[in-house]
């Protein structure tokens, strides 16, 4: 069963050492930390991380973010961190999930999944439903961002459709409207560089029938990408 779910974005700048001397977005970092802390407060027996990635697949639970892939100050050793530690490097979004759990001090078991941008909504929903049936009290950490084409400084060229698309997603998350999340159009999401789509739909599948309540902790686009931080808690039986 799912005890609680958290939705966080996965910009690499969440990793403090990647933003240089300036913390850049401490409020976003704090919102993510609060969401993950909330996730862990129900003392789950395991945490499942669901993140967009190159394939729909499970990854080793001890996998971590390869921070060096994004640069940062050179490590004392010239060897990649993964080679030193023997720990699997996760794709970036899943890696940020693992990083957020580490930052929150979580040391329990982890199940880590990436979901492909090619995974259709039905497949995402099915995966979510399967992840919910674990026989364990499981918390769900979902990584995903809205459109990256929201303004003139956005990573992608401005697309006038982005605002309405993101507003609909934000509303669906705030209202815990799982059907609306499942209805997000994969093609439009891809056009708008909204990486969260498959992960949102896994979330909807996992929370199906639980009548969750949602709290949005952060919703803004300081760099032209919609960052959404939310907590979703199933209704008590």
């Amino acid at each position, binding site marked *: 069963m799912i005890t609680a779910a958290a939705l966080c974005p996965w910009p690499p700048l969440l990793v403090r050492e990647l*933003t*240089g001397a*300036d913390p850049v977005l401490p409020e976003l970092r704090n919102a993510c930390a609060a969401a993950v802390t909330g996730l862990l407060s129900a003392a789950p027996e395991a945490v499942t991380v669901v993140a967009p990635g190159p394939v729909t697949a499970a990854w080793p639970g001890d996998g971590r973010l390869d921070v060096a892939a994004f640069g940062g*100050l050179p490590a004392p050793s010239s060897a990649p961190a993964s080679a030193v530690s023997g720990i699997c490097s996760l794709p970036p979004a899943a890696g940020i999930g693992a990083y957020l759990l580490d930052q929150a001090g979580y040391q329990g078991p982890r199940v880590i999944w990436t979901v492909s941008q090619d995974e259709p909504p039905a497949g995402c929903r099915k995966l979510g439903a399967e992840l919910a049936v674990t026989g364990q009290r499981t918390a769900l950490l979902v990584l995903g961002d809205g459109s990256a084409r929201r303004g003139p400084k956005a990573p992608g060229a401005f697309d006038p459709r982005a605002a309405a698309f993101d507003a609909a997603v934000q509303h669906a998350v705030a209202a815990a409207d799982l059907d609306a999340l499942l209805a997000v159009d994969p093609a439009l999401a891809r056009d708008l560089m909204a990486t969260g789509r498959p992960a949102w739909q896994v979330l909807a599948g996992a929370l199906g029938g639980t009548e969750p309540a949602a709290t949005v902790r952060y919703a803004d686009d300081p760099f032209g990408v919609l960052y959404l931080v939310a907590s979703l808690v199933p209704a008590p039986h």
Partner: protein
Amino acid sequence: MLHLGARTYPPEQRLIMAIVNRTPDSFYDKGATWDEAAAMDRVHEVVAAGADILDIGGVAAAPGAPVDVAEEIRRTVPFVATVRAAYPDLVISVDTWRHEVARAACQAGADLLNDTWGGQDPELPGVAAAFRAGLVCAHAGQQAPRTRPFRVAYDDVLADVLERTLGQAARAVAAGVDPARILIDAAHDFGKNTWQSLEVTRRLGEMTSTGWPVLVSLSNKDFIGETLDRPPGGRLTGTLATTAICAWLGARVFRVHQIQETRDVLRMVSAIKGEQPPARTVRGLA
């Protein structure tokens, strides 16, 4: 660790020494801070721009009207005292080769003796030791103070630089100067033609690898002017390029006229070396 005044600097920290001339005839500023009020304005300006050290000099390097000990003291020492009163923690260096001037300057609060003429006065290290001041051990070849190099030849210019600067450092330590307060300086242009200053720059790593902190004094000098065919006012780009290379090769202290520009260059080098993070990184990470 480098110690200057009451401060301690880790090896990766690069320091800016701002030139403040109390002369009517220095080659670059041509007496701009000969007036005491103008000199104090310059101090406020360079401190605000981030200078770590002031280098106060009372005698232009080039040949010119004689400046005796009393006149050099008159030009520099009261000013050292004024600056010390205004900035109790600022590291103050005095550019002199004379131990009498050095003693008066240390009494007025100087922390560092910049012996650019390379050990002409054997009593200078004793003054540094007595006041727990630092000492810059520079290479001027066999050149006398206030002369220009005349047909200077070396079998190996850097070998001579090392022999003389390390020799002075050893004598300073023997005289009781704190080794953590000693720097070495190849003294570009001093006792060197342009080819020799360029070679010293190219091989600066041989100086930094000695372990002594290396000071470089490059600012708008003739070797840059001759390389680029530019008058003193047109040498900033060449100065900054040379600064970047010296910083990359491990120089620690940069004696300069332009503080802000030098600071930006040193910041870039520190970031490229991975010794200091950029100010703010968002590009590609949002």
